[in-house]
């Protein structure tokens, strides 16, 4: 029997003008799209309705909710803002909950400095855990992102980034596959 594709969308987690994370998100989405048996798409939070007169479940967007419902795993591309995550990324993620339960996540940290967004990764982890996501142990870290891409948004050293990204995606696809099997076939008492 042919297995249905694993669905892993990539969330671009910033709305800031001139965001270099957009180059990163496009690259990761492209690498994911090369994998056989994987469906992906880029979800840009700048294109999502983000009302600020409410929060959480009460401002749930049916389109984003359905995308999370259909996902087996997610990639979050997040720049580090003041040692943490962008507020609007958390605002959007908070609109869903049950859609995430027992699904895989992987974080791509982006920073203009030398630490590759390690602090955005660390600050996201407790929130993702509470949402029911199972985050993988491999992260992708784009340090000094201003030097990583050329003026056209292409990676200067694509081969090295493709190898690092492959390692990240191998783990995320495995975890997404195993968790889907568990959700569908392994009951809890």
């Amino acid at each position, binding site marked *: 029997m042919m297995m*249905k594709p694993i669905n892993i969308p990539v969330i671009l987690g910033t709305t800031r003008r001139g965001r270099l994370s957009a180059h990163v998100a496009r690259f990761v989405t492209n690498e994911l799209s090369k994998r056989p048996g994987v469906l992906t798409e880029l979800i840009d939070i700048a294109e999502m309705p983000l009302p600020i007169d409410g929060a959480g*479940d009460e401002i749930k967007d049916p389109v984003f909710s359905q995308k999370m*419902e259909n996902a087996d795993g997610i990639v979050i591309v997040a720049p580090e803002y003041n040692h943490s995550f962008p507020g609007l990324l958390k605002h959007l993620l908070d609109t869903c*909950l*049950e*859609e995430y*339960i*027992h699904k895989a996540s992987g974080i791509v940290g982006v920073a203009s400095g030398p630490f590759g967004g390690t602090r955005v990764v660390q600050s996201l982890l407790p929130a993702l855990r509470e949402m*029911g996501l199972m985050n993988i142990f491999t992260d992708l870290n784009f340090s000094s992102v201003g030097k990583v891409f050329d003026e056209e948004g292409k990676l200067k050293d694509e081969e090295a980034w493709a190898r690092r990204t492959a390692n990240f995606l191998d783990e995320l696809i495995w975890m997404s596959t195993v968790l*889907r099997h*568990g*959700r*569908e*076939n*392994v*009951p*809890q008492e």
Partner: protein
Amino acid sequence: MICADCGVEMTRHAKKVIYPRSEHEASLVDEALGGVLLERHTCPGCGKGASQVQEPK
């Protein structure tokens, strides 16, 4: 729980304590757990997910 699309029994794979989101759910709060129990089910046939809040036994 039965899958609305396939009609097969879904797999209950998670029970998560959450804060109540409605007056009805508020009436179901288990004080020992500090919230209500959200059950998450997934269909082994089509992969569709569904949730329900556990009613008191």
